[in-house]
């Protein structure tokens, strides 16, 4: 689990992920990208140093235990990002595909609503905080 201001390389991370393990049959990765819906100049991500790391470690440990993951990875950036930049990524490695997919979705759902990050978007009309979606909170109920 890493919380960092610096960019990361999804391809390089994934190439190194679970390398050499022979009990892994399925690997899933997710990455979130700064999307330009029209006029977005930049995204600023604020976080809560200390709590962020604790929350991510807890979510990751729960996923590893629940789906018997052979490997897992969570990286989340903070600070200023531009459209097209990767915000975060998760990766899961398991024996079979169902577990790898479920665990990655679990990580994402919890990370969205339970890890202390806040996004502020700056566009032509000024800056505004991204509002949490009810759908993201509701997504937790399936787990």
């Amino acid at each position, binding site marked *: 689990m890493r919380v960092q201001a610096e960019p990361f390389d999804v391809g390089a991370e994934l190439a190194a992920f679970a390398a050499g393990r022979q009990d892994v049959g399925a690997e899933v990765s997710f990455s979130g990208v700064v999307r330009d819906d029209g006029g977005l100049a930049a995204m600023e*991500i604020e976080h809560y140093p200390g709590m962020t790391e604790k929350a991510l470690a807890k979510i990751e440990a729960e996923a590893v235990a629940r789906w018997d993951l052979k490997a897992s990875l969570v990286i989340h950036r903070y600070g200023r990002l531009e459209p097209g930049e990767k915000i975060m990524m998760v990766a899961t490695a398991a024996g079979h595909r169902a577990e790898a997919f479920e665990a990655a979705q679990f990580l994402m759902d919890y990370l969205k609503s339970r890890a202390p*990050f*806040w996004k502020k978007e700056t566009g032509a009309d000024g800056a505004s905080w991204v509002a949490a979606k009810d759908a993201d909170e509701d997504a937790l109920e399936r787990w």
Partner: protein
Amino acid sequence: MIEVLYFAWVRERIGLPRESIETQAATVADLVAELRAREDRYDMAFSDVSALRVALDQELAGFDAPLAGVREVAFFPPMTGG
């Protein structure tokens, strides 16, 4: 003495990221009431607590949670990571 932290628009409305507060508040709700009584900017920031979340010593908690033994309280809007 308790450390109180503010994030995102709560931080912007109150105008500072953190402060040390001397308080006898028994619960989070009591602390919120004390803060609201201080100044308008606090009153406005806490006007709708349903739009806020609170963490005690870096763990999410409810507004009715007791503050005994707590060193760090953080107020922020619902999280939007990922």
